[in-house]
């Protein structure tokens, strides 16, 4: 007997996803996707994955939604500046009727095959839960997911932190920031006072919550990724509001901060290799402290990375605290 809550949640999720994907109006699609992310976080709770729920609550609906909204806002502005009154119509029936039918049939076939594979999954596969539990005492933390992330499969996480750095490098290579938090010269002073008040209030709370999540990650759901996501949210709020007390750090500090997670992670790993151990094989007694050190650096880097990804490009050279230079898109 499946609880009504789960059935309702799943139906709502599928319906929202469908509506979000077929919406011709992209704004509508994005708002539906934000609602989808909210419900997804509830689904993770139901699936007893509070770590994922925390990350989803911060990223899935929060940061991803803000990213999409901001991109659409910029797209519309570019279209207006190019003199397109309406967004160009999107052709939905590429390939005509037969093409549409073949696409639908192919997708249904693939989905059905995958669904059948899920249905036929052997019951009672043990997974790696027992293996993790058996060595949990040596990992330096008592929360299983953190133990996997930063000890048992730490090299995996190391590379993932590297991927984040690659993402920001790629974004910086593609675009120069048009300082989207100041959409226009004329708009520079137009942050409504209540927004500034909200940001002044929320950002300190978010910093505390991020610190709390980082700390609690050793013993309970939480950790670097969730804390970094909350930090990223705080950064996005700052970019959107630019209170007088917040300036972007100088470029060199910004770059150091972006790389800090990877550098500390690698540094710990290499130091252990030099000390005659294997990569990221923590000595007993040191594991907890080393994990916390790595997590702190990774939190900072993730927070900064997510913030600067929202900025959407490389801040202009020699301009540490971006002014209202209007460089929309370089030619």
């Amino acid at each position, binding site marked *: 007997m499946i609880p009504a809550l789960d059935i309702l949640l799943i139906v709502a999720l599928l319906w929202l996803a469908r509506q979000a994907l077929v919406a011709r109006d992209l704004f509508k699609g994005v708002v539906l996707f934000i609602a989808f992310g909210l419900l997804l976080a509830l689904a993770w709770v139901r699936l007893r994955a509070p770590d994922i729920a925390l990350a989803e609550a911060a990223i899935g609906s929060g940061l991803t939604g803000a990213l999409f909204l901001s991109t659409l806002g910029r797209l519309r502005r570019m279209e207006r500046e190019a003199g397109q009154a309406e967004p160009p119509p999107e052709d939905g029936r590429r390939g005509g009727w037969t093409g549409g039918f073949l696409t639908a049939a192919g997708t249904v076939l693939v989905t059905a095959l995958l669904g059948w594979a899920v249905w036929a999954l052997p019951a009672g596969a043990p997974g790696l839960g027992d293996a993790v539990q058996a060595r949990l005492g040596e990992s330096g933390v008592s929360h299983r997911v953190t133990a996997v992330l930063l000890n048992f499969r730490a090299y995996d996480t190391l590379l993932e932190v590297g991927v984040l750095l690659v993402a920001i490098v790629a974004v910086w290579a593609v675009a120069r920031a048009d300082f989207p938090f100041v959409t226009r010269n004329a708009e520079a002073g137009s942050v409504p006072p209540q927004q500034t008040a909200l940001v002044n209030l929320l950002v300190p709370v978010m910093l505390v919550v991020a610190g709390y999540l980082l700390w609690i990650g050793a013993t309970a759901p939480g950790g670097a990724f969730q804390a970094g996501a909350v930090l990223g949210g705080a950064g996005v*709020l700052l970019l*959107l509001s630019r209170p007088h007390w917040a300036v972007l750090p100088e470029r060199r500090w910004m770059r150091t901060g972006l790389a800090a997670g990877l550098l500390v992670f690698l540094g710990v790993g290499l130091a252990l290799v030099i000390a005659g151990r294997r990569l990221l094989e923590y000595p007993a007694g040191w594991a907890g402290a080393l994990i916390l050190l790595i997590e702190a650096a990774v939190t900072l880097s993730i927070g900064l990375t997510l913030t600067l990804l929202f900025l959407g490009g490389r801040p202009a050279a020699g301009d540490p605290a971006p002014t209202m230079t209007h460089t929309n898109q370089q030619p």
Partner: protein
Amino acid sequence: MSGFALGAAVLLLLTLVAGMVRVVRGPTAADRMLAAQLFGTTGVAVLLLLVLAGGGSVLLDVALVFALLAAVVGVAFARRGIAAPQPGRGGGHERE
């Protein structure tokens, strides 16, 4: 008590599903976003009820993050979603 809390959570989820009609129908972007904001609050309430239904106090942290990040989306929408200014039409405070 936990049965009652679960029932209330289902009810809240139902109101959420009803609210989706507004997201789909619009008509304006602001209407959709308001509905999404209500979803955020409803989600927080559902999480609190799930705590009561024995979901563990970690759900409070999830609710906390929910509450914080809903504000980020809301501000992003107000600043970028509808406020993407038209050229030649400066911003300025809406009140003063």
